């Protein structure tokens, strides 16, 4: 991939900052999400909570269904492919998806290799639970990072853990002396140049969103205060009692994430939140997929 294309792809993620990306399964849901203020939608057949409930193998969505969602909204449309499944990614590129999520929510297709994302023109977002993982994905060509969290649970604890871990790692490297960076590159199993970037700038070279377990406006604001640049909401919206209201409230909470008075108002009368599953009580741990 040429450098200017990668810059354009990172740039698109910059335009999504301060926004909420919502999982949708139908054109109708996509329209609701757009009206509620989603900055992008993630088109998928089943939301993570249902993937969890159904079990079995979970794959890329039907391209026809993705295209219908593309036609329904003017905001960017993302879609997921399995970890390592570069043909699913080629298909998504062929239908001109705006962003591919190489996602641990689907059943991995390769337990060793991630997709060589540098071979694609379309941008990729990948999950990470620590800095090493984030930089490895960036080295493979990811133009955006998100926390893995534990999707489909409505339990925020893993997303918090991942965001804190990534930012603690960044602060540690930012404060190091230059001669210590070589050892960090070895420890994190990433190229020296990426470590040097983090050391110099005190941030990732790409945008970093929170994902996995966000269910309430308070969850979204929590992730923003912890340093997320935006939020993915998966099952949290369309598994709740009043999706439009909840989606609008989460959008406003992300914009005004430090305004507790406003978030208090936004949190009133939202109806049923999604039924949560405690992430300690589940059998499939998605965050362990891909390293």
């Amino acid at each position, binding site marked *: 991939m040429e450098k*200017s294309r990668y*810059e*354009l*792809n990172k*740039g*698109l993620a*910059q*335009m*999504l*900052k*301060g*926004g909420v990306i919502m999982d949708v399964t139908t054109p109708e849901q996509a329209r609701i999400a*757009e*009206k509620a*203020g*989603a*900055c*992008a939608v993630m088109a998928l057949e089943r939301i993570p909570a249902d993937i969890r409930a159904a079990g079995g193998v979970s794959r890329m969505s039907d391209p026809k269904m993705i295209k219908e969602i*593309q036609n329904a909204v*003017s*905001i*960017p*449309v993302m879609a997921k492919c399995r970890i390592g499944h570069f043909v699913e990614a080629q298909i998504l*590129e062929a239908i*001109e*998806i*705006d*962003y591919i999520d190489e996602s641990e929510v689907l059943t991995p297709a390769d337990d060793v290799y991630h997709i060589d994302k540098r071979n694609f*023109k*379309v*941008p990729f977002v990948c999950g990470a639970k620590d800095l090493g993982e984030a930089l490895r994905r960036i080295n493979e060509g990811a133009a955006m990072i998100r926390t893995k969290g534990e999707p489909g649970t409505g339990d925020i604890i893993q997303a918090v853990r991942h965001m804190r871990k990534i930012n603690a790692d960044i602060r540690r490297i930012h404060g190091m002396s230059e001669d210590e960076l070589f050892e960090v590159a070895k420890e994190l199993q990433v190229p020296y140049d990426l470590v040097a970037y983090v050391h110099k700038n005190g941030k990732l070279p790409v945008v970093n969103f929170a994902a996995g377990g966000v269910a309430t406006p308070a969850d979204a604001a929590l992730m923003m205060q912890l340093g997320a640049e935006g939020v993915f909401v998966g099952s949290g919206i369309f598994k709740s009692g009043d999706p439009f209201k909840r989606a*609008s409230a989460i*959008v*406003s909470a992300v*914009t*005004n994430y430090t305004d507790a008075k406003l978030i208090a108002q936004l949190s009133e009368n939202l109806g049923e939140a999604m039924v949560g599953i405690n992430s300690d009580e589940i059998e499939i741990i998605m965050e362990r997929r891909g390293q």
Partner: protein
Amino acid sequence: MVIGVLALQGAFIEHKKMIESLGISCIEVRQAKDLEKIDGIILPGGESTVQGLLLKKHNIFEPLQKKIMEGLPVFATCAGLILLANEIEGDSSHYLGTLPVKIKRNAYGRQLGSFTTYQPFEDCSDFPLIFIRAPYISSISKDIDVLVENKGNPVAVRYKNQVAMAFHPELSENNKLHQYFIEKVVAQTLSPIV
């Protein structure tokens, strides 16, 4: 001089850094009362549907529209251009509607259609134009100045106190358009040369 950048959604930090690189202070505008503190405003890139919605929801829409009509200098990029346009193709409504141009959303297609090119702007022969899912200015009223053209089409325009462009100067290293806004629009408004 204080510049505000609308900080509801999108790439507003990048603009803030550009303005600060010119030695000018820049604040984030999140509420209507912030408009009282500024001498010019930047409407950043992002998603116009989201920004338009949040402007209304947080009661900034009308005060901002009024300020712009009364002459508050405004610098708008990409989604910001869509917010200013008084006509949007395929849409019966518009947002602020203070700029007499007609625009087309996502006119170059999806992300695969995003591109970078270089065109002259003032004394700079290769000013970088970064288009990301950009809108297209399909027609302009006669009294609009074209600042930058790409293949014969206007991509940056000025109309009185409003400067708007379809691309993202804030993602480049070149702050010449921001400098133009500060010197030729904001400074002139603060102390007009008769």
